[in-house]
């Protein structure tokens, strides 16, 4: 099973972040979610190997065919690609 980490906070919706441990824009997105005290889950794709990585990447591909990072899936219905705080706030309304 891929390691999914949970960050506690206010439950404003279901937030799932596909990220890389080394990516600055992923770091900024996480910092923004932390600053807003939002509950979210995330996975560092670069820390996954083999099958775990393939499975997660297949999931990401459904949301973002380019498989770029960060990709934030909101309420299992919308996704925000890249570090875009305005788009995140808009989708959370």
């Amino acid at each position, binding site marked *: 099973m891929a390691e999914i980490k949970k960050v506690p906070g206010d439950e404003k919706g279901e937030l799932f972040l596909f990220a890389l441990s080394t*990516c600055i824009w992923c770091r900024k997105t996480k910092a923004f979610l932390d600053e807003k005290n939002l509950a979210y889950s995330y996975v560092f794709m670069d820390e996954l190997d083999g099958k775990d990585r393939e499975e997660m990447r297949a999931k990401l591909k459904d949301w973002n065919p380019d498989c770029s990072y960060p990709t934030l899936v909101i309420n299992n219905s919308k996704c925000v690609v890249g570090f875009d705080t305005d788009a995140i706030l808009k989708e959370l309304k």
Partner: protein
Amino acid sequence: MPKTAEENLFEKLKTDAARGGYNLNPDDEFTMALVEGLVKNESRYGYQACPCRLASGNRAEDLDIICPCDYRDPDLDQYDACFCGLYVSPKIIKGEKKLKSIPDRRPADNAKDSSSADFTTDGKKLPYPVWRCKVCGYLCARDEPPATCPICKVDKDRFERFI
């Protein structure tokens, strides 16, 4: 006190960028975070894969995303920064433009081969136009000339289309 691998790489990148007519992001904290990513990737893959893209760990597959990546210059031309924001244009340094997250121009899987040949020489098709620095004669084959000639440091507008 001896310098860390990160500090050494940071200095090297700064020097190389200045020498080649590029600019590292002047936000040292931001840039250092990316340098740490490069050092981490160097130690786990053996090469400095882009910190903001997922490397496969197979060098042949990752060649296009070894920093500086194949996409840096087109991104500098179009967005004034590379995908990570490690390299930025003078516009961003001067504050005329704000650095932001940009779309990834790396083609998705299976779409990597772009053999569109639009430029011809002696009847041979070329995948890129060739630009010539009118000052020093430096030639390069790419979509646009570089912002600064890497050899003699003159500006982009001193280039002419050669082929």
